[in-house]
């Protein structure tokens, strides 16, 4: 235990003093903030492309203004203007299109004069202007029509942990942020551990290290220190994520939510049990993957060989992340349920299922038990490989040699 604490604290100090660690946290935080703010930025770019003017029949123009504002930024209304010339669009530099509305008997004619037709969605125009078209066609009063179009829909959640669609969406966004953090942290830190082990081997310092402390303590201390720092990184990153993306408490009103949906979410959608699940599966996933990477790092003789060896190890992590993304949308498909018990994959997939659905408690417990056992087995095997691998120079060991080491 003393060896473990010594290695753990020494490794923490070594990593904390490393510039790479500090820069990594900063770059990650900036990246997460950028990811969250990207939709808003894209929206603002899209808004610039959606600047329009409305012209034509004055009555239609006055009715269409409020309806079109849902999807477009209406710069100016030009009631009474019935002819549009190319120069009208050229003169208005900040306008991407002019919508001309004309009445023709019991119907309405819409002509779009666009600088770039790709920027104006015909379907959204149809949807926005449908109430006016129906009013003209049916002759109903505006109030009657408005009442008829507001079809009451009540949502009743059955076997769902969420009361509303907004809560479910929020949970998915939060789960996505957490899964993404999990993926990035595991990938970055596992490869850092592998590089660190390989560096110790190739720089020949390994012999002094294993003479100073027990190799198992050395390996476990390194991994635990790395996990601790990864948790610190994760807390910082998730904190940044919430800082830039969350609005506390209840979800916003529906109209506001429509416009804010892409960039904000409510923290109330994720329970403390979800967070505990995240912590448990994060730890298991981290230990499983980083231990494997460390063992493989001890087998290389040149740091140049790391990439080739890391490739096969990355595959299950990438697969786990992709299946977890599927699980966010469909948490109860057979593939998702089965893989939520499989070591290396379960830490991602089971966590995704926990956040977006009601997973039976026995399934969570079984998955935890399987993965704890798998983590222990991986640690024992990796410890054996590491102990021998760190002092094995010359040709890379053959699979048969590695197998004999594992069996010994």
């Amino acid at each position, binding site marked *: 235990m*003393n060896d473990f604490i*010594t290695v753990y604290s*020494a490794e923490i100090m*070594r990593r904390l003093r490393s510039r790479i660690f500090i820069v990594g946290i900063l770059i990650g935080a900036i990246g997460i903030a950028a990811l969250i703010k990207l939709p808003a930025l894209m929206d603002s770019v899209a808004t610039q492309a959606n600047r329009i003017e409305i012209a034509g029949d004055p009555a239609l123009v006055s009715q269409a203004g409020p309806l079109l504002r849902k999807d477009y930024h209406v710069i100016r209304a030009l009631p009474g203007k019935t002819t549009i010339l190319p120069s009208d669009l050229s003169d208005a530099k900040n306008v991407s299109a002019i919508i001309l509305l004309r009445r023709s008997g019991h119907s309405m004619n819409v002509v779009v004069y666009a600088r770039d037709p790709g920027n104006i969605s015909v379907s959204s125009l149809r949807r926005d202007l449908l109430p006016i078209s129906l009013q003209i066609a049916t002759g109903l009063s505006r109030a009657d029509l408005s009442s008829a179009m507001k079809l009451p829909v009540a949502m009743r959640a059955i076997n769902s942990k969420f009361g509303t669609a907004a809560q479910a969406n929020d949970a998915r966004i939060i789960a996505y942020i957490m899964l993404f953090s999990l993926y990035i942290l595991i990938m970055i830190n596992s490869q850092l551990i592998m590089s660190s082990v390989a560096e*110790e081997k190739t720089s*020949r310092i390994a012999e*002094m290290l294993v*003479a100073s402390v027990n190799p198992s303590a050395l390996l476990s201390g390194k991994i635990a220190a790395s996990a601790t720092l990864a948790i610190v990184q994760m807390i910082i990153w998730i904190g940044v994520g919430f800082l830039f993306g969350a609005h506390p408490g209840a979800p916003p009103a529906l109209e506001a939510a429509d416009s804010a949906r892409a960039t904000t979410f409510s923290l109330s959608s994720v329970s403390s049990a979800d967070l505990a699940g995240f912590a448990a599966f994060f730890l298991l996933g981290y230990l499983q993957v980083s231990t494997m990477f460390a063992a493989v790092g001890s087998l290389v003789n040149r740091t140049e060989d790391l990439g080739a060896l890391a490739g096969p190890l990355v595959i299950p992590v990438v697969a786990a992340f992709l299946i977890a993304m599927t699980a966010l949308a469909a948490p109860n498909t057979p593939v998702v349920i089965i893989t939520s018990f499989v070591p290396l994959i379960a830490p991602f997939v089971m966590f995704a299922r926990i956040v977006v659905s009601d997973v039976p408690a026995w399934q969570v417990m079984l998955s935890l038990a399987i993965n704890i056992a798998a983590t222990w087995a991986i640690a024992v095997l990796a410890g054996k490989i590491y102990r021998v691998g760190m002092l094995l120079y010359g040709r890379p060991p053959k699979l048969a040699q590695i197998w004999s080491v594992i069996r010994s």
Partner: protein
Amino acid sequence: MRAVRDVSFSIEAGSTFGLLGPNGAGKTTTMRMIVGIYMPDGGSIAWKSAPIDGRIRRRFGYLPEERGLYGRMKVREQIAFFGRLHGLVEPDVTTRTQRWIDNLELNEYVDRPCAELSKGNQQKVQIACAAVHNPELLVLDEPFTGLDPVNADMLLATLRGLKQNDTTLVLSSHQMWQLEQLCDRFCIITNGENRASGTLAQLRAVWTTRVIRIEPGGEAVRRVLQSVAGAHPLASDDGALLYEVPANTELPSILRDLVAVESVTRFEAIEPSLHDIYVRTIEGAA
């Protein structure tokens, strides 16, 4: 392949022990077993009558033959890191790190990454890393390799200082004269087996011949020596006469016979050096 077979020796606490042998003899494997890197598949290794476990091992220091340091870590941090690995805490870490920096004249380099240092200075840093925790037993595999004569002398003086502080030293080297100056006991191994061990006097005691040097080496002297049972001449390039005689030969009686026939100005019985004993032992094993 079996690297070491039935090698057995004991080391007195506070003494200095030299492990000798040609390349591939099993010296490094033996040292690695002492410090717990390799586990022997037979036999046992004990320190002060107790089997060596993790706690005891932390009181050992080890300088491997293969040199290695964290290249990007600064000299002071590196030494302190190994101090902490061996259980040192503040303020001992800082004090002892500085003491070794002073001892090995590394002050100029303390804030430089180790990768920027010359090989010799890197080796000095590594020696400091191995000894910063003031180990009870310090195992040094080829510590003089790569050091220039000035730094080799500095290391020799440092090891003498450790010896005076009752640190038990085990070292291997191909520089026999350095080992002869430093070590109290020796063990010569080859092909993984123990060929000879003991103090220099004990090793000499089992030596079966002695060399005598006589000046001037005239014909009469040569005749006397040829009459000694088992004596045979050795090549000499300085005009003196060198003869190897059986170890049990009565040297005073030979001297009396020589003086009777010629005016002998020098008669010297040359004790075999560690180098001689080593070479003969290895040749005998071959």
